[in-house]
């Protein structure tokens, strides 16, 4: 079975769960006066779940044959591409998300930009550090001073809030 049908199978599971919630469990918490309404919070999701399941069954049954075309990246030979770099970058993004609040904007952003270049194979250390620091400062100045959106700049314990 090709990847697109595996994905359709997974999506079918999600949509069945969604549909089950919409059809059977959601309305339990509805206030009595709202039950007189012609439309319930679950009306639209009910219709959507039916539509989604029909479309997924069409894909799974393979009624609609699509011609196999040359993909930009062949997922069957994924390991031949630079998979390691991609995964490391994703891990880096997750780390950034988790560290942004506790470690402060300036520290986490500078290290994100620096490590990002490092993962991609850049080795001009001074240039990397300079770019990371300058870019962080510019963005921080723009967001904090010009736009007035608060971001904790430094480590959590160094600032009062």
């Amino acid at each position: 079975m090709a990847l697109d049908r595996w994905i359709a199978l997974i999506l079918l599971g999600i949509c069945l769960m969604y549909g089950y919630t919409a059809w059977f469990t959601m309305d339990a918490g509805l206030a009595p006066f709202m039950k007189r309404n012609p439309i319930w919070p679950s009306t639209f999701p009910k219709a959507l779940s039916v539509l989604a399941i029909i479309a997924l069954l069409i894909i799974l049954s393979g009624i609609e044959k699509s011609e196999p075309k040359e993909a930009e990246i062949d997922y069957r030979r994924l390991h031949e591409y630079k998979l390691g770099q991609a995964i490391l970058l994703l891990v880096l993004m997750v780390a950034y998300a988790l560290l942004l609040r506790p470690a402060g904007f300036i520290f986490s952003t500078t290290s994100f930009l620096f490590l990002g270049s490092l993962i991609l194979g850049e080795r001009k250390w001074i240039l990397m550090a300079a770019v990371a620091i300058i870019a962080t400062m510019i963005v921080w100045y723009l967001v904090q001073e010009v736009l007035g959106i608060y971001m904790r700049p430094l480590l959590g314990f160094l600032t009062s809030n």
Partner: protein
Amino acid sequence: MLEGLLIGLQTAMSFQNLAMVIAGCLIGTFIGMLPGLGPMSIIAIMIPIAISMGDPSAALILLAGVYYGAIFGGSTSSILLNAPGVAGTVASSFDGYPMAQQGKAGKALTIAAVCSFAGGTIGAILLMIFAPMLSSVALLFHSAEYFALMVVGLSAIAAFAGTGQVAKAMIMTVLGLIMATVGEGALFNLPRFTGGIMDLQSGFGFITLAMAMFALPEALFLVLKPKKAGSAEGEIKDLRITKSEARAIIPVIGRQSIQGFFIGVLPGAGATIASFLGYAVERNLATKEEQAEFGKGSIKGLAAPETANNAACTGSFVPLLTLGIPGSGTTAILLGALIALNVSPGPRLMVDEPQIFWAVIMSMFIGNLVLLILNLPLIPYIAKVLSIPRTFLIPFILFFTLMGAYIGQNNATELLILVGFGVCATALKFADYPLAPLLIGFILGGMMENNFSRSMQLYDGISFIWERPMTLGLLIIAALLIVLPSYRARRAKLRAAGVSDGD
């Protein structure tokens, strides 16, 4: 009208006001390039400055400049990086980004600038002529028709996004709609499908989803498969539009500025629907060879949404200035600014304070013109973004996607959602599922459900579908749009296999 024009021109042409337009356009363009900050947020940020100026005409002129600048800036990031920061520019990335990949980034930006200019200017002319009449037409559209109009938009996109695989495009659209139901609906303040997670209470963020669907998979593809050095990537050539290209896009501009304007007049429809419908309509009108180009860097496919969204932005001023009803988020903020400046828009505005009404219209012309003059020389420098070495460019793209998602919500969980959906979107892209319908479904989903619920309540049931002829007509069009392409594909296949049509 001529008298009014002159009043407006006189107000707008003062030195101070010209400086305002230029400053507004520059600020708008540069901030608009950052994904996550659309015209709405930039105008909201500029309001304190505008109000403190005290002069309503000058303030409006500044805000109009910021508005147009922000729209153009938003197209820049969706063309160069495939990272649309505003819903209205999502359609621009369909063809703008492939053009940039082919080394035609400069040309794509020029087309975007010219089309924005044309759309905005023609929109402003239409606004002058039709504003008084259109205000009554806008009121004829009820929630039932809005619902039907959105169904038409969605099915048009689903039908065109996946030629030959309508089911896939349809499931992606429905998935987008499903994702829009997560969180609290507007009509019933009940959290739905949040799984008890507080951060999902207000639903998924639009920027988060846009970045996860477009920018992140694209960046990951760049990491996985580095382009060979010396290819067209990063090279900037073909800045100018040739004569034949100009001839190809002029009818598109003409059609789309009118269509976009009238869609923009309808409150709530706005630039997003106008750009998607414009793309779909132009694709349908194009000849067979041109149709194959769409999605792979067609100049028509870029010109259509760019023209339509600017014309629609102008159109959205009609209900604001004539009825006092803001048709979009941006005009709602402008309404707030106007009221703070002691101007109350409504039917009396044109009578009581004509100089403000006409100054706004004139500032639209001037804003558009200044934007074109400022940006055309800047385009080669903006396009240079692509020639930054990938070891630096990719971390920055990733950083801006993260930042865009974070600034909007100020919520670090949003970043985790972004990465999660980004991975899912990459898998979907591997399996050849079209991603655009999902995002469009998500954008229109909330509006669609609200209008559907409202008409259900007004008619106490589903009867509005057959009791309102316009709704029924629109829904039939939507059904045809879904059925026809697959029917046509099937017939073509049968014919190829030697089965006769029958009559």
